């Protein structure tokens, strides 16, 4: 554990949820992840920042093995990710993911989007799954949209449905891959509000985002990546106020300029 942690009102336990050691990955000749080491404890909220193409998305996509890694070890809640399909499914059941493009299923209603995995993966009875889904749709504040199709909702509403859909599997870890990047500015807040609430409830979160306000408010640690490497890792105050690495400084100068 990187002892610099200063948890805010939210608690962090000693239990290690994600452990990546010496992870390398290539896309053909392109070395996209270089010797990544990252340890995340239960209840920690990590924001991953960095210029585009730095491997942030690839890193979190390795955590539920949407991308297989080529070298190194990734252990999620005690389960090591290997070729073994059973273990991959086990990990995916525990890890929720929210995508930049929402990726809701357009041929299903909002409610069906949320109940699909509980019914088919958790073998939950249909009415139970429906109650569960309505519960989460209320928490993301769109229960009245349950019978609509995703195409009828705004981007912000769709992304909140996507969060509810992931939560319906009762995950131990939530991954966010630039959840607000495809949203119009006026919708960013409604999604971030939901994410802040989730953080306050003690969810272990990894979030790739450019929302530095969100990072300041909820992150225990900010991980800065560039060119496939983790360059710097620090609590938000330290990261924003006294960055050590030159590349971090440059990045912050650009991103905070406007």
């Amino acid at each position, binding site marked *: 554990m990187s002892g610099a942690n200063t948890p805010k009102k939210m608690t962090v336990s000693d239990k290690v949820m994600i452990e990546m050691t010496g992870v390398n990955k290539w896309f053909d000749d392109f070395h996209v992840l270089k010797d990544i080491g990252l340890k995340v404890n239960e209840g920690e909220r990590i924001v991953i920042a960095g210029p585009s193409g730095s491997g942030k998305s690839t890193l979190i996509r390795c955590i539920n093995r949407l991308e297989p890694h080529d070298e190194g070890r990734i252990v999620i809640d005690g389960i090591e990710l290997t070729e073994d399909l059973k273990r991959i499914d086990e990990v*995916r059941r525990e890890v929720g*993911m929210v995508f930049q493009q929402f*990726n809701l299923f*357009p041929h299903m209603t909002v409610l069906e989007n949320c109940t*699909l995995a509980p019914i088919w993966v958790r073998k939950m009875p249909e009415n139970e799954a429906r109650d569960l889904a309505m519960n989460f749709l209320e928490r993301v504040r769109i229960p009245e949209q349950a019978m609509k199709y995703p*195409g009828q909702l705004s*981007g912000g509403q*769709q992304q909140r449905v996507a969060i509810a859909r992931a939560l319906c599997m009762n995950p131990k870890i939530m991954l966010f891959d630039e959840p607000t990047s495809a949203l119009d500015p006026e919708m960013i807040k409604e999604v971030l509000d939901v994410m802040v609430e989730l953080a306050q409830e003690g969810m272990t979160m990894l979030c790739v985002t450019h929302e530095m306000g969100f990072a300041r408010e909820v992150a225990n640690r900010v991980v800065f990546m560039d060119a496939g490497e983790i360059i710097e890792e620090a609590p938000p105050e330290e990261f924003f106020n006294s960055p050590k690495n030159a590349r971090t400084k440059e990045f912050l100068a650009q991103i905070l300029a406007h």
Partner: protein
Amino acid sequence: MAMEDVTGRPRPPMRSRISPVDWARRNLFSSVGNTALTLFCLWLLWLAVPPFLDFTIFSAVWTGATREVCLGPDKGACWPLVWANLGQFIYGRYPEDEIWRVNVVFALGFAAIVPALIPSAPAKRFNLIFLLVIYPLIALVLLAGDRPGLRPVPTSEWGGLLVTLVVALTGIVVSLPLGIVLALGRRSSMPAIRTVCIVFIEFWRGVPLITVLFMASVMLPLFLPEGMSPDNLLRCLVGVALFSSAYMAEVVRGGLQAIPAGQYEAARATGLTYWQAMGLVVLPQALRHVIPGIVNTFIGLFKDTTLVLIVGIFDLLGQVRAQLSDPSWTVPQGALTAYIFAALVYWVFCFGMSQYSNFMERRLNTSRER
């Protein structure tokens, strides 16, 4: 609020009410060139339509018991020929005493297909299981009669519309699921499966159906030991089914390619297995995109069944041709009459399929109520 169209489908065009005269002026006579084209087309229609209607309706002979009624100048289509041979056209050389069996199969099939096609009809699951599993078995037993109490009827005595429907429906029922599996296999990340599927698809797409039928009917028995060779019709059924599966696979693959990778990833990320992700998320969307292509393949298959004639199986068209040599109905306009009748039967089936596909497309689109 930004209403994003996640599927990228165009919105239906606005409809405005205009009078027929206005419509004609705007669409048919809008320029000198357009006017000339309109007049040219009207002239062509004037050339073709009246003689056709005259032959098939106004000058046609509708009733009569022998060929004599159709003889003489200015006589049009000889419909009594069709009535007299209707039994042959529908059942071929199926023994007359056993024709009730075919009728039971037709009636059962009709009773099972109609509710299956109506989306709001109840008991869909049972209906489909009956149609796809139980009904073919009943039909096989009844038609072939290979059971105690029923007289066996070899497939060489089957014919007419019966054979056309047996070949077409088997092809349709087999090609869709097999085509889906092949399409998924062709996109698989496993090299062995992908290679097998590519070879299969490209092989069947690369040879003409006539070759396939010849191979099945003439060559296959040469390779198999004496007495091992399966029924001629069955061999053709397998050939037609595999042939159309290859085409179906490519249609389905087109639909799969239209679905963004994010759909599959999102499904897998929530813990669904490969087959669940495909069956619940990707395929329902992909197949919706390619309904016109799927029905197109079905229609092509339905008409391709006429090729079984060349391996000695008498489908509807073959039976119609065979009946023309019947001396009791040789009349000059006999061939034309019989072919018009055959064309009409094929048209009714194919047009029915195309209309049903339009209906399903509209229904699936409105159910999404964007």
